[in-house]
C-alpha cells in the first residue's frame, strides 16, 4: 500500500469517526434453540424489539444500540465460546444473557477476567451468591419462591409440608433451596419425593405422600410437563391438602395441560402474569402492561416472564449507561450496582454491593388458579 492510499484511508477513517458516533454494543448469548428454547426464544425477541424501539427513539447518550446475539442452545460449552467472542471480537460494552444457570456460570469467569458488566437472565442463587464484582441478574431466585410459598403455607396454618420434585436442574436446585429455608420459615418437610424426566405417572410417589401422616400442604418444584401430571394425579388420588407449584410453570400452558385439576393450585409468580388484573395503584402496573402489549402485538404470542427478564436486563443496562454518562465499563458497573427503585417486570430493583439482584419477596405475587385463570391471592 502506498503512502498516499494509506493517508487517504486514515483521513477517511478519521472523518467517519467524527461524523458517526460509535454504537453502544450490547452482547447477548441465549438458548434460542435446544431444550431451553422456551427461555431463550422470548428473550431474544424481547431484546431485538426493545433495541429497535430505543434506537427509533434516538438511542442512548445520542448513540445507537447494536445487538450482538448468539444462540448458545442451552450448552454451557457453546456459551463459553460465544462469550469469548463477544468480549474479544465484538468488544461489547455490556453482556445481557445466559438463559440458563449452566450457561451463565460458564460465562462468569470470562466476564470477571475481562471486566465486562454481565447481567444474567438465569434463576439460581449461585449466580449472585457469593457476590461477583461484574455479575448481576434479573430473575427471582428459587430460594425466594420457596420462601414465598412457605410464608403462604404458614398463613393458611400449615406447618408440615411434603415436597415432590423433578430431576431437572431447575427442579433439583429449587428442592435444595426449599429444604434449606424450610425450617427458617417454620415449615417442616415431612416427605421428599422425586420423579424422573419424561415420567408419565406420579401416582406412586403421591400415594406415599398421601399416606405420610401430618402432611398439610404439598409443594411441587419443577417445570415442563411433570408438574401438570403431578396436578392431575393429585386430583385423581383426591388428596385434600393444598397443592403449590413453583414459578417454573407460571404460564397459561400449565393451566391448559392440567385442566380442571389445576383449580385451587397456588404458585408464586411475577406480576407480568397477571398484568391486566393488577390494581391501578400497583407500582409495576404500567411497566408490565406496556411490555405485555408491545410484545404481544409484535409477536402475536403470549408474553412469558422469561422475556420479561430480558427486558429488565436490557433496561437496567441502558439506565446504568445513562447514569454513568459513558460506556466506560467500570463506571457502568458502579452505576448498575447503585441501581435504586428501578421498576421492572420482575419487581422493584434495589441493588447494593451485597445484593446484585435487588429483588425482595414482594416481587413475587401469590397466584391461585380459579376458573381456569390466574387470580391474585390477597
Amino acid at each position, binding site marked *: 500500500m502506498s503512502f498516499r492510499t494509506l493517508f487517504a484511508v486514515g483521513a477517511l477513517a478519521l472523518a467517519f469517526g467524527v461524523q458517526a458516533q460509535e454504537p453502544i454494543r450490547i452482547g447477548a448469548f441465549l438458548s434460542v434453540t435446544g431444550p431451553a428454547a422456551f427461555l431463550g426464544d422470548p428473550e431474544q425477541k424481547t431484546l431485538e424489539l426493545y433495541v429497535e424501539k430505543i434506537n427509533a427513539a434516538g438511542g442512548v447518550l445520542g448513540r445507537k444500540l447494536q445487538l450482538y446475539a448468539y444462540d448458545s442452545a442451552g450448552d454451557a460449552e457453546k456459551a463459553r465460546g460465544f462469550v469469548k467472542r463477544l468480549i474479544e471480537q465484538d468488544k461489547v460494552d455490556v453482556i445481557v444473557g445466559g438463559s440458563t444457570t449452566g450457561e451463565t456460570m460458564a460465562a462468569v469467569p470470562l466476564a470477571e477476567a475481562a471486566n465486562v458488566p454481565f447481567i444474567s437472565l438465569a434463576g439460581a442463587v449461585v449466580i449472585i451468591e457469593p457476590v461477583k464484582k461484574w455479575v448481576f441478574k434479573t430473575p427471582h431466585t428459587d430460594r425466594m419462591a420457596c420462601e414465598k410459598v412457605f410464608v403462604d403455607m404458614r398463613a393458611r396454618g400449615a406447618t408440615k409440608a411434603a415436597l415432590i420434585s423433578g430431576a431437572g436442574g431447575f427442579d433439583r436446585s429449587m428442592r435444595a433451596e426449599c429444604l434449606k429455608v424450610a425450617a427458617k420459615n417454620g415449615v417442616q418437610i415431612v416427605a421428599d419425593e422425586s*420423579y424422573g424426566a419424561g415420567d*408419565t405417572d406420579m401416582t*406412586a410417589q403421591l400415594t*406415599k405422600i398421601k399416606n405420610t401422616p401430618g402432611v398439610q400442604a404439598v409443594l411441587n418444584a419443577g417445570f415442563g*410437563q411433570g408438574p401438570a401430571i403431578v396436578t392431575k394425579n393429585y386430583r385423581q388420588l383426591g388428596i385434600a391438602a393444598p397443592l403449590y407449584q413453583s414459578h417454573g410453570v407460571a404460564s397459561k400452558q400449565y393451566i391448559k395441560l392440567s385442566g380442571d385439576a389445576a383449580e385451587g393450585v397456588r404458585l408464586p409468580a411475577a406480576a407480568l402474569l397477571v398484568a391486566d388484573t393488577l390494581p391501578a395503584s400497583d407500582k409495576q402496573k404500567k411497566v408490565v402492561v406496556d411490555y405485555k402489549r408491545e410484545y404481544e402485538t409484535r409477536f402475536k404470542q403470549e408474553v412469558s416472564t422469561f422475556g420479561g427478564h430480558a427486558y429488565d436486563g436490557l433496561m437496567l443496562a441502558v439506565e446504568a449507561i445513562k447514569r454513568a454518562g459513558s460506556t466506560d465499563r467500570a463506571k457502568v458497573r458502579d452505576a448498575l450496582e447503585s441501581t435504586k427503585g428501578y421498576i421492572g417486570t420482575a419487581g422493584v430493583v434495589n441493588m447494593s454491593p451485597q445484593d446484585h439482584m435487588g429483588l425482595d419477596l414482594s416481587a413475587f405475587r401469590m397466584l391461585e388458579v380459579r376458573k381456569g385463570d390466574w387470580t391474585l391471592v390477597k
Partner: protein
Amino acid sequence: MSAQLVQFLLAGLTLGAIYALVALGFAIIYNASHVINFAQGEFVMIGGMAATAFVDSGLPLPLAALAAVAAATLVGFLLEKLAVEPARNASVVTLIIITIGASILLRGLASLVWDKKIHSLPAFSGEAPIAIGGATLLPQTLWVLGATLVTVAALWWFFNRTLTGKAILAVSHNPLAARLMGISVRRVLLVSFGLSAALGALAGILIAPISFTSWDIGVMLGLKGFAAAILGGLGSGPGAIAGGLALGLIEALGAGYLSSAYKDVFAFVIILAALVFLPNGLAGKRAAERV
C-alpha cells in the same frame, strides 16, 4: 395399606401397558430384520403430536387419532424406503446407527413442523377418577389397558392367521428360505416398519391425555420400551408384553416402597441384569450362533 398397594399396582399397569406397546414395535422390526429400531420412540411422539395437531385443527378425536396413526405409518414406510432399504446390504449395526440418525432427524423435524411446547389431548371418556379398593384409576388408564389387549389379540391374529403375517414370521426365521418360497423380503420389511410405526403412534395417542406429548418424549419412552423388549426377550411378542408390564410394575413399586429418586435406575439396572444373566430375556428363543 392394601389400598396403597393397589394404587401402586394400578400405576405400574398403566406404565407397563405403554412400555409394552413400545416394546412390541421393537419386537416386530427386530423380527423382520434383526435391526433394533431406535426411532421407535419417535413414532410414539409423532402419534401424540399429530393427533393433538389434528384435534386443534378441528377434527373430532376418533378421526384425528386415525389420521395420526396413518401419518405415523407413512413416516414408518418412508423411513424404511429412504433410510433402511438403500442400506439393506450393510451390517445390522450400520442399520441400527441409521435408525439412531433417523430418530434425531425426526425429533428435529417435529420441533419445526409443530413446536417445542407440551401438548395434551382430551381424555377419551372424561377424567372422573374411578375408585377401586381404596385406590383410584383414571378412565383413560382403562383405555390404555383395553387398547393394549385388543392390539395384542389383533397382532396374534395377524401373525398366525394371515398370509402377510406368516410371511413376516417366515422371514424372521430364515430370510433366505423365505425368499426361495417367493416371499418378498423387501415388502415384509416395509410392512413391519409401517406396522411398528402404527403401534408406536397408537401408544402415543393413548398416553397423550395422561402424560401429555411433546417433540422430545420419544427418547425416554423409546429407552423404556427398549428395556422392556430386552427384558422380555427381543423379538418375542408375548415377551415384549410381559417385559413391559414387569418393568412398569417394578418402577411403580420401587418408587412407592423404596425410593422415588431411583425410579429410572430400576429400568436400566434391569437391562443390565437381563443382558448379563438372561441374555435371551424372559421369553426369548435360544439363538444358536452358527459359526
